[in-house]
């Protein structure tokens, strides 16, 4: 499989990270966003990150020059028609993603692979209104934040996805140094599903907002369990509202399966506006 040109739609944290990772594989990247301001910031962020890699001697002067030259900021209409792969990392809303791919389907040839970086919306559902040939070339490619650092990529087949195509992509990512794993199109895929109880069970251990218990649980899971961060520290970092929303989404998608039931403390934290690091207050408090 030849992947030489990629379009990344959405230039937020994930989109910019994914674009940078592709650049570092010597690919040509179109970075797309409807907000010129957001796009400009993302390009500056990527360039700064690449320059830091150069300062640390992780890439050469020539690499830096090539990577920068290979990145192009554009809008949807300006995407190269010969891109091999389009991956979206836009807002997690089904209708927005559906419309995006319908628009892209009208302008890009059938051989172009379409992918979603969604962490929670079923791939089959995003592709449901696309023509059958496009559905065969549609799949989930789920990167983890930060995309340039975290090795994992989940490859998710939709109901109609061409298995050979997804296997080829899995091999492409492996060849490029990622740990790529294949999974079915089920809520949360692998990681966001299996990790639910790291938070859910910890919340049930503490039950209420008691800082001493929260600290003790985090400390225990790090010191005894060997986890790099405790569940409450991690929820603060991710955003308690974001984590709660993923939990609710997985819970609903599994038809109210008790294993995924959200905890009242999550809701209390969200209602109280203590969302974590981003609001300077979550389970812990952070300096202003």
């Amino acid at each position: 499989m030849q992947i030489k040109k990629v379009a990344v739609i959405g230039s937020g944290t994930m989109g910019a990270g994914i674009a940078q990772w592709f650049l570092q594989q010597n690919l040509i990247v179109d970075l797309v966003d409807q907000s010129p301001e957001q796009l400009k910031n993302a390009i500056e962020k990527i360039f700064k990150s690449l320059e830091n890699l150069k300062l640390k001697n992780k890439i050469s002067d020539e690499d830096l020059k090539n990577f920068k030259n290979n990145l192009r900021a554009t809008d949807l209409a300006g995407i190269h028609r010969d891109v091999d792969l389009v991956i979206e990392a836009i807002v997690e809303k089904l209708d927005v993603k559906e419309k995006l791919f319908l628009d892209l389907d009208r302008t890009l040839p059938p051989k172009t692979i379409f992918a979603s970086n969604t962490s929670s919306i079923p791939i089959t559902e995003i592709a449901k209104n696309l023509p059958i040939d496009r559905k065969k070339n549609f799949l989930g490619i789920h990167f983890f934040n930060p995309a340039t650092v975290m090795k994992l990529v989940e490859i998710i087949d939709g109901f109609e996805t061409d298995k050979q195509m997804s296997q080829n992509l899995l091999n492409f990512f492996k060849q490029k140094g990622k740990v790529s794993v294949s999974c079915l199109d089920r809520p949360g895929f692998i990681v966001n599903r299996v990790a639910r109880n790291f938070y859910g069970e910890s919340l049930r251990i503490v039950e209420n907002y008691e800082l001493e218990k929260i600290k003790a649980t985090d400390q225990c899971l790090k010191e005894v369990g060997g986890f790099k961060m405790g569940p409450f520290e991690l929820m603060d970092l991710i955003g308690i509202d974001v984590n709660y929303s993923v939990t609710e989404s997985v819970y609903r998608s599994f038809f109210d399966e008790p294993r995924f039931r959200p905890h009242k403390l999550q809701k209390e934290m969200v209602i109280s506006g203590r969302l974590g690091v981003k609001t300077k207050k979550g389970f812990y408090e952070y300096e202003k």
Partner: protein
Amino acid sequence: MKNKNILVVIEPNHPHFKTIEKNFLTRNADEAIASYETYDLVVDLTIYRTEKKIIFLKELAKTTKALIISDLTCTFQDRIFHQLPQVKASVSSFFYSPTRTIEYFIRIETEDHIKTMLQNFIDEFFSKVEMKTFENKMIDITFTVPRVVSQIINEAYFALDEKLASKEDIDLAMINGVNYPLGPFSWAQKTGLAHIHSILEELYTTTHDMRYRSSLTLKKECL
């Protein structure tokens, strides 16, 4: 510890059986309740669920007045402490820890000098098997790490029930996607799947919450 007369009750299915057998006077559960020797301290490392543990500890208490430290990983700890005043502390000695650290708990009402003695003893005892210790001051059903990790393992098995991905890919995903120290299936293997099942059963029996029911594949692999 040098001046203390210590009995360790342990069965061969315990991961530290060989090391502990080399360093301490050991008996299996049947031998322990059949002997009436005098000890200062009994360390019970049998891996039993609540009902069996209560029966065993009651029998043991008939043979000795020594303080007892018991492995209560597979139990509803409050019930044991409520029924057996001789049990002064609990440990989680067999659940795999990537950092080689065990959780322990000392009864809150324990007098300070006994508490200090128990803390020192537990530190020294587990240093013989090259384990560090972590005092957990809030216990309930099982311990913190066994409870959280058993539920993660159970979910990985539910994913396997649905053929979501292979065991290898699920392990790889958790290590490389969220930096887990090891994958859920490796963790289950290192701890013993039957013990994970016991912890889940205990959580389910105690709470009657369906979130703790075990996956079918997990149950099958325990057969």
